[in-house]
């Protein structure tokens, strides 16, 4: 499988202060990778660094073989898309408008949607299962529906790589399962590479191909969810927050 993203001795943090030892990780096409760690462990910092919102303290991030920061903002907009925890809050923003905004990098000066662009928008809404919401106001949707709108936006952006920051944070159990299914669909059918983060030992983590586990001042550990549980990494890194039950379920469901 071809390589999408690779970090070399990447050091992340603020004001020259590294949060954790240097990171060497990579993402391949079609991977679903989970970035897990307790709150304050540097997940968001790593996310922002990988998505070019933040300069690395040291080392580099290579996206398709080229340094992330050597791309222009416009070029980056066609390489990776974001699904964030912050949501648009404008009262009259329609679902269609938000998803269409994801198409802007592909459009000309007047942002005129061609028939094929509209088709892509409707297809994406179909993929995440919210075609019926197309005319609704975004703020009137439930958290799960809003999450799907933002995923549809990322889809029409048509990037090989998708970053999802805490995608399951506000979702109820059925919505989480739906989200897992959507992620699998994107990875298997559309060959999308997905990196998502989670601050608790969510059911999502078990569906990742690879997990990156972080904790403050600890080196990043990677492996399949099962390996990490077996090696006791999960236990170590999540020690302060894992309850007995959660750990029991983690083990049981493997």
């Amino acid at each position: 499988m071809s390589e999408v993203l690779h970090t070399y001795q990447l050091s992340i943090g603020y004001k020259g202060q590294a949060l954790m030892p240097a990171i060497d990780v990579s993402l391949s096409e079609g991977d679903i990778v989970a970035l897990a760690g307790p709150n304050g462990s540097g997940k968001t910092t790593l996310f922002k660094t990988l998505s070019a919102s933040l300069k690395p303290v040291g080392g580099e991030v290579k996206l398709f073989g080229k340094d992330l920061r050597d791309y222009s903002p416009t070029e980056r907009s066609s390489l990776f898309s974001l699904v964030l925890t912050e949501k648009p809050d404008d009262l009259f923003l329609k679902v269609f408008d938000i998803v269409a905004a994801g198409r802007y990098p592909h459009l000309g000066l007047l942002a005129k949607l061609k028939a094929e662009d509209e088709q892509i928008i409707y297809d994406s809404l179909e993929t995440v299962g919210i075609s019926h919401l197309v005319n609704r106001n975004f703020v009137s949707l439930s958290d799960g529906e809003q999450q799907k709108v933002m995923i549809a936006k990322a889809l029409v952006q048509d990037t090989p790589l998708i970053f999802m920051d805490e995608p399951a944070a506000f979702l109820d159990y059925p919505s989480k399962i739906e989200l897992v299914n959507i992620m699998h669909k994107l990875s298997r059918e559309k060959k999308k590479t997905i990196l998502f983060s989670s601050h608790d030992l969510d059911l999502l983590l078990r569906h990742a191909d690879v997990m990156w586990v972080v904790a403050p001042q600890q080196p990043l550990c990677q492996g399949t969810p099962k390996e990490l549980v077996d090696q006791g990494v999960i236990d170590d890194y999540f020690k302060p927050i894992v309850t007995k039950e959660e750990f029991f379920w983690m083990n049981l469901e493997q």
Partner: protein
Amino acid sequence: MASDTDNTLRRKTPPIALVSIAILAVGIVLFVLNLRYGSVSIPWNEFWDTLLHGDTSTYRTIILDYRLPQAITALLAGIGLSVSGLLMQTLFRNPLADPSLLGISSGASLGVAFVVLLGTATGLSVSTLSLWSTFGVTIAAFLGAFAVLLLILALSSRLRSMVSLVLVGIMIAYIAGSVTDILKFFSQKEGLHSFVIWGLGSFSNVSKAQLPFFAIAVAVGTIGSFLLFKTLNLLLLGERYAENLGVNIRRSSMLIILASGFLTALITAFCGPIAFLGLAVPHIARFLFRSSDHKLLIPATAFLGMDLALFCNLIARLPSFEGNLPINSVTALIGAPIVLWVIFHRQKVSHIQW
């Protein structure tokens, strides 16, 4: 689930073309009424004769030299201020943002205060409001407003957060305001009077000779704003989404501030600080069209701003008011209830939501 309870949010969008035609028709009617009504009443038949045949009746001067420039100034100011307000509301993601947010109108006031004090100090009477002095006040307001605009632009390149930028704007407004007060303190009565008159706002300060310049400048600012619609739409999603979709946040914020600030500075210089148009009109546009798409909102806001400004100007010159009411009090009187309504409506919507 919350999604089942919000029937009020699912109202159909009114047909865009129909609403647009209605807005334009209202604008044309208001424009004609602006020419027709005032302290001097003109019979309809003479009114049409003067307008269509341009005959040399006694009303010619009143209509063509006085009311026409005033009506055109009003509609241009309405367009510019409303579009400027929309840009501020979107940039700062704040429904109560308006063109004066960044202290640009305060800068204009400061400029005028300087001229007034200078007039007092040198013995020149600015208060006579002769053509020259009106123009002097305009120039002073222009310089003051642009000085603040440049300062804000310089600072915006150093500040990353929009909240800091708003705070800086408010602080600049305070500084300009207090210096204005100090200057006023040292001014003489006549100077103060002309300052107060300028502060009440007026659409009749733009002379026929200045009108083409004013019109072109407003058009440039408005078209410039329209060209930013893609960026504005993306900013609605939030800064990080916008950035990911190829928006250079700093450069875009500067362009938006430049477009909005240019319109505000220009109109404040010519008409004085006009309150509430820039705050209220974008809300009317959003509610009428049930949309946040700036490709639609910017033209809608422009034409609604034109309508509302013409309406306010008409009210200010109703025959019973014997001349002109201060335009600023009329815009506030009409604009404030609209803003109140928006606040309550938002509360209602958010109540349904959460």
